[in-house]
C-alpha cells in the first residue's frame, strides 16, 4: 500500500485524478481459482445452497473454457498478454464489521476515500436526491435512501443483501438474461461474483429518483466481479446510473462484470454508465481490463431498455450492452461515446436482437480516438423470422485526432424477415486545423477548443444522460483528452 508521500506525488502529477489506494485491513482469499475458493465466497456471504450450486456449475464450465481455446473471445480487436487466472485473488472484503446505523460510524479512512472521489454520501443525500449503493472493494458498505424507496415498494440493495432478503426474486431472474455459460467472462463472473446491486421496481411504480452506484476497485491485485440485476415489473420506470473510478497501479486488473436487466409489460429501464477506470499510463503500462457483459431483456409488450454509456477509462474495454427485443412493440436503444487515448483499446458496441413483431432499435455510437488509441465499433442487428416490421437505425461516427490512432466499424446485419427495415450510417472525421484555429482566433485555448468540438461531436449521446451525469461526462471527456494535442 502506498504511503503518504507517493500518494501526494501522484496527486501532484495529476496523471490520473483518482489514483490512490486506501489503507484498510482486508479479509482475502488466497490467489487462484479453485472449488474451495468458490465455496469460501459463497459461505462468507452465507448464501443458500442453490446459489452455491449455480456458482459451482459456472466454475466447472469456466475450467472447461480455460482449456478450450475456442471459448476465449479472440475475435475482439484488442491485444493483451494472457491472463493468469490462478494469480488473481477472487475474494477480499474490508475486515470491519459492517453494521452501521449512520454514516458517522464508517471507518474514517473509508470516508476520506469517498471524499477524494467526490462521493460524500451526506452531500449526495442532501443535494442530489440520489440513492447511493456504494461498492467498496467487494462488499457494499452503505446504502442510503432505502427507506424512502421502500415506501413505494422499490427494492434497491446490494446483491448480497438481496440474496438474503429476496431470494425468490434473485433466483427467478439471476442468469435469465445472461446464462452462466454465455461467454468466457460472464462464466467467470457467475462463479466468483463478489457483490453488486439489485433493484426491483414493482408494478406501476415510477422510481422517484435516479438509482446510482459508484464502483471502485481498491485491494491491490484483486479482480472485481460485479453482479447487477434490475427488474422492472409491468408499467414501471427506473433510471439507473453507474459510475466508476479506480486507483493507479502498475499491474493490470481484471474487471469482469455482468449486468442483467429485465423489463416486463410497458416497463422502461434507462441504464447510464460513465466508465472511468484507470487507463494505464501514456506507455500503456497498467490499467484496467474491463470485460463486461451487459444485456437487457425486453420481455414485455411495449417494454423499453435504453443503454447510455460514456467510456473514457480502462486499458481495454470489451463491452456490448445489448437488448433482446422479445415483447411485441418493444424498443431497444444504445447510445455510446467511447474514447481511447494514449495506448487504450476499446472493442465496444451492442447487439439488438429483434424477436417480437414491431420491435424498434436505435444505435448511436460515437468513437473518439487520440494518441495511439485504437477502437472498434462492433454491433449486431438481428431480425428474427417472427419480427415482422422490425426497424433498426444505426449511426456510427468516428472522430480521429492525430495520425497514430485507429477507428474501425464492424456492423453485422442479419435479417430473417423480409419486412425488416435496417439503416446504417457511418462517418469518420478529423478535428480540422481550420476548426481549431477558428476557436483560437476567438480567444479559446487549444484544449478548450478540442473539448468543445468533441462535446459537440458527442452531443446526441450526452443529451441522453441525466443532467448531473452529463456534466460529469463532459468534464471527463476533457480530462481524458489532456495531452492529446500538440
Amino acid at each position: 500500500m502506498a504511503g503518504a508521500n507517493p500518494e501526494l506525488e501522484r496527486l501532484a502529477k495529476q496523471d490520473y485524478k483518482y489514483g490512490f489506494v486506501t489503507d484498510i485491513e482486508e479479509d482475502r482469499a488466497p490467489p487462484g481459482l479453485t472449488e474451495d475458493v468458490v465455496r469460501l465466497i459463497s459461505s462468507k456471504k452465507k448464501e443458500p445452497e442453490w446459489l452455491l450450486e449455480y456458482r459451482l456449475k459456472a466454475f466447472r464450465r469456466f475450467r472447461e473454457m480455460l482449456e478450450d481455446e475456442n471459448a476465449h473471445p479472440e475475435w475482439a480487436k484488442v491485444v493483451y498478454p494472457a491472463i493468469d487466472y490462478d494469480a488473481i485473488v477472487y475474494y477480499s472484503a474490508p475486515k470491519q464489521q459492517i453494521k452501521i446505523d449512520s454514516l458517522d460510524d464508517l471507518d474514517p479512512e473509508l470516508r476520506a476515500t469517498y471524499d477524494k472521489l467526490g462521493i460524500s454520501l451526506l452531500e449526495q443525500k442532501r443535494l442530489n436526491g440520489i440513492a447511493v449503493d456504494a461498492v467498496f472493494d467487494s462488499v457494499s458498505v452503505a446504502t442510503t435512501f432505502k427507506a424512502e424507496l421502500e415506501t413505494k415498494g422499490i427494492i434497491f440493495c446490494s446483491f448480497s443483501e438481496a440474496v438474503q432478503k429476496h431470494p425468490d426474486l434473485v433466483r427467478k431472474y439471476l442468469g435469465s438474461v445472461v446464462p452462466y455459460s454465455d461467454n468466457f467472462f460472464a462464466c467467470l463472473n457467475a462463479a466468483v461474483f463478489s457483490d453488486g446491486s439489485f433493484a426491483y421496481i414493482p408494478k406501476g411504480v415510477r422510481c422517484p429518483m435516479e438509482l446510482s452506484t459508484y464502483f471502485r476497485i481498491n485491494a491491490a491485485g484483486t479482480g472485481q466481479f460485479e453482479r447487477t440485476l434490475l427488474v422492472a415489473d409491468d408499467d414501471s420506470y427506473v433510471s439507473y446510473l453507474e459510475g466508476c473510478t479506480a486507483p493507479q497501479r502498475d499491474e493490470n486488473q481484471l474487471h469482469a462484470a455482468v449486468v442483467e436487466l429485465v423489463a416486463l409489460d410497458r416497463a422502461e429501464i434507462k441504464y447510464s454508465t460513465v466508465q472511468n477506470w484507470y487507463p494505464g499510463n501514456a506507455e500503456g503500462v497498467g490499467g484496467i481490463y474491463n470485460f463486461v457483459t451487459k444485456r437487457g431483456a425486453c420481455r414485455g409488450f411495449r417494454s423499453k431498455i435504453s443503454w447510455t454509456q460514456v467510456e473514457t477509462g480502462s486499458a481495454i474495454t470489451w463491452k456490448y450492452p445489448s437488448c433482446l427485443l422479445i415483447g411485441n412493440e418493444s424498443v431497444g436503444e444504445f447510445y455510446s461515446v467511447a474514447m481511447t487515448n494514449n495506448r487504450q483499446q476499446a472493442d465496444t458496441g451492442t447487439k439488438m436482437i429483434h424477436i417480437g413483431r414491431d420491435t424498434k432499435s436505435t444505435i448511436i455510437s460515437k468513437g473518439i480516438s487520440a494518441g495511439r488509441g485504437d477502437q472498434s465499433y462492433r454491433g449486431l442487428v438481428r431480425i428474427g423470422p417472427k419480427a415482422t416490421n422490425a426497424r433498426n437505425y444505426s449511426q456510427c461516427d468516428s472522430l480521429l485526432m492525430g495520425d497514430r490512432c485507429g477507428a474501425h466499424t464492424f456492423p453485422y446485419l442479419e435479417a430473417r424477415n423480409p419486412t425488416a427495415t435496417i439503416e446504417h450510417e457511418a462517418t469518420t472525421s478529423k478535428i480540422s486545423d481550420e476548426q481549431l484555429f477558428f476557436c483560437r482566433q476567438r480567444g479559446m485555448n487549444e484544449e478548450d477548443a478540442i473539448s468543445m468540438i468533441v462535446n459537440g461531436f458527442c452531443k446526441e449521446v450526452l443529451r441522453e444522460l441525466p443532467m448531473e451525469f452529463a456534466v460529469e461526462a463532459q468534464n471527463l471527456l476533457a480530462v481524458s483528452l489532456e495531452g492529446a494535442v500538440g
Partner: protein
Amino acid sequence: MSENALIEIRNLHAMAGDTPILNGIDLELHAGEVHAIMGPNGSGKSTLSNVLVGKPGYEVTEGEVRFRGQDLLEMDPEIRAREGVFLAFQYPVEIPGVSNSHFLRSAVNAVREHRGEEDLDAIDFLSLLREKMKLVEMPEDMMSRAVNEGFSGGEKKRNEILQMLLLDPGFCILDETDSGLDIDALRIVANGVNQMRSPDRAMLVITHYQRLLEYIVPDHVHVLSGGRIVRSGGKDLALELEEKGYGWITDADAAQPPRTPKADSNAASAGS
C-alpha cells in the same frame, strides 16, 4: 513612425511553405482609423491577415509587428485574440454539434477572463447577445443551430460580425468579408461594421472590390502587390482602382527596381 500607433507593421516579410509572399510591408494604423487593403489575387492580402493573427503555416522571416506597443508576433494566436486582435474570416468554418450560443459564450468568457473580468452567466450573456444580434439582423434560431452549419454565405458573414460585436476587439481585420454577399447582406454586414467604428479602435478592411468601401468608407486605402504596399491614398484611390483596374499600379511597380522599405513608404505617400 508615431509613438501612439495602435498597430505598427514594419518591414514584414513572410513565407507560406517555401514561397515568399510578403516582401516588406510597412503599415501603421492609429486608433479611430479604418484602412482598406486592396489588391489583385495573389498579392498577399490574405497572408497579411493570417500572419497578423498567427495562423500556423506561415513563417515570418523579417520585420516586426507591434500592437499597443507589444510584440504581436511573439504571442500565441489565442493571446492575440484576447488582447483584442480580431479576424473576420473569409471562409468561416462549421463546427457540428456545438451550438452557436455556446461557442459565442465560450469565446466571450475567454476574452473576459484575460481582461480580468467575471464570466458572464447564461442570462447576462443572452441579453448581450440579443442586443448585438439586432445590429446584424440575425434571427434568434441561429443561436441554437450549430456554429455555421447549414448557414448561407451571408449568414456566416453576419455571424462573423456578430462575434466581432460581442468580443469588442481593439483591432479588427475583415478578410474579404464582402465576397459572396448579395447587396442586402452586404448592407447588413457593413452596418454592423460601422457600428464598431470608434475612436478607440482600428480596422483593416481587406477587399478585392471597391463595392464594400461604398458602405464602409475608409480613411486610407493601400494597394498591395507582390507582397508590398505599392500605393497608398485616400478613399478616392479605391474609385480610381475601380475605374482603371490594378494594372496601371502593379505594372508601374513591376517596372521599378526593388526598393527599401523606407523608399517604399515614401513612394506610397507620393502616390496619393
